[in-house]
């Protein structure tokens, strides 16, 4: 039973990670920075509870806000690059965050022992749940409550004008500007919201595993984050959830008997999915990032006309 609850927890936090990438992807930005945001949230929330004795809820909220602030700052330079260049730039940011935590040591004495991030060794003893007598089941329910709230909010936004505007920007920035949309505000806003969600997910993640270290937040996690909405499609938030269940539940856990061979399957699945459902499992909508826009050249400042 605990195995399945544990799996549900993993699916829950990864859903938050995937949704954070979903929001950003709606505006056409392929961000590999989500693992970095997740890491910031994890460390900040863990510091709040383990070092300063916060309750888990405010800790996650603080983690979300701090990460949102960082994501907002990342959002501005990200405006200047698109497509593959943005992938590279955000990847570099993610690695920068990871290396920061690799070097970051700040330990204070609490209850007779030293707690806090300890460089390469990571951050141990994030024991809010066991210390407060939360069983695995309680933790699972808590995680899914947070996931449900975030999903409900995103579902609402998706169906309001804001959601249509995000998709419009993702489809054609030049046209979006021409109808009076403020690209800076919208793209930076999406990055900020995505950062907040990733930070909250990371904050919960840190508490479910009780020990975090920089290695977890590498390129693989960033790839997973962006793979969820791509595989699930941008039609609605449920695509991302289905993709997380499929990848984490089936590919990673269900096929564990295959050992490391399943990584090959993961790659093969992405390739197949891109071929057969190029717009994701749910939904027609996908930013046309990797396809050349036939009309783009017209607006390049090449000459008259």
């Amino acid at each position: 039973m605990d195995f399945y609850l544990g799996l549900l927890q993993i699916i829950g936090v990864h859903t938050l990670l995937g949704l954070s990438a979903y929001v950003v992807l709606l505006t056409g930005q392929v961000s590999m920075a989500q693992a970095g945001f997740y890491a910031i949230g994890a460390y900040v929330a863990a510091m709040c509870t383990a070092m300063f004795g916060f309750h888990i809820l405010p800790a996650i909220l603080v983690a979300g806000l701090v990460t949102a602030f960082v994501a907002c700052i990342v959002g501005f330079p990200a405006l200047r690059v698109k497509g593959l260049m943005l992938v590279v730039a955000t990847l570099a940011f993610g690695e920068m965050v990871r290396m920061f935590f690799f070097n970051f040591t700040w330990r204070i004495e609490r209850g007779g022992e030293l707690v806090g991030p300890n460089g390469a060794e990571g951050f141990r003893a994030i024991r809010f749940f066991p210390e407060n007598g939360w069983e695995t089941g309680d933790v699972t329910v808590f995680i899914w409550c947070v996931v449900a709230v975030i999903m409900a909010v995103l579902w609402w936004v998706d169906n309001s004008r804001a959601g249509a505007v995000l998709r419009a920007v993702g489809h054609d920035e030049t046209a979006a500007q021409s109808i009076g949309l403020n690209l800076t505000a919208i793209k930076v806003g999406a990055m900020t919201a995505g950062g907040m969600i990733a930070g909250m997910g990371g904050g919960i993640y840190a508490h479910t595993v009780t020990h975090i270290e920089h290695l977890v937040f590498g390129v693989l996690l960033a790839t997973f984050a962006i793979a969820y909405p791509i595989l699930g499609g941008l039609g609605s938030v449920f695509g991302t959830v289905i993709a997380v269940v499929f990848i984490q539940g089936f590919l990673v856990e269900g096929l564990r008997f295959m050992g490391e061979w399943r990584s090959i399957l993961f790659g093969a699945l992405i390739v197949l999915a891109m071929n057969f459902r190029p717009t994701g499992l749910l939904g027609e909508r996908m930013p046309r990032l990797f396809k050349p826009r036939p009309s783009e050249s017209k607006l390049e400042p090449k000459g008259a006309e």
Partner: protein
Amino acid sequence: MMLTLDNLSKHFGGVRAVDDVSLALKEGEIFGLIGPNGSGKSTTVNLITGLYTPTSGTVSLNGRDLTAMPQHARTSQGVARTFQNIRLFGNLTVAQNLWVAQNGHEQRRQHFVSRWFRPGGEHSGDIEELLTFSRLASKRDVLASNLSFGEMRRLEMARALASNPRVLLLDEPAAGASLDDAELLAERIRAVRDRGVTVLLIEHMMELVMGITDRIAVLNFGRKIAEGTPAQVQDHPEVRAAYLGGGHDEKMEKASA
């Protein structure tokens, strides 16, 4: 004067795409901007909407200087446009395409929350009216990418009107259209003007431009070579030279004799 361009220039490196052009549109007129390929028409539109920043000169609307304003601010001042090669949001429905474009002055004054986060606004009366006006009411929930070419053109014009602009810039709306289509288009452009919108029409199709515009300006190599009523412009020797590729008047006269 409503839309005014004063000594507007745009240089791309050594190329003078728009060179010292001045125009003044009157409220409620249909103004044509014509010229051979590469004469700077589209660049002029991009300067008015703010896609490009001019090298020198100013753009102003009803006496307010727009030159330093970002694109989205110009929309709320009342500038809207369509593109030569249709640029719709193919991932949104027809109604949603109009919904996202409601960024006009009055619309911006709505409360932030109700403007951005109230679901169902794509069924508002304003949008319905515009859909009916554009003969797209039956297509309201169809993805824009699934429309026919003519419907896409109509939707793009409707999207430009969704912000209740004062001036509408139409960048070659008849590109790819037949003569019959052009007549319908002319009717539509007049209907837009009758809504109280001033129209700046950029077009290659002479039948369309000569038939519906009140005044015309002609560009060649980035410079304005003529301005006046359709009849005046048609008889202008420099204009005929520009279009027929001739160098000077004598050659033209021989050709027409």
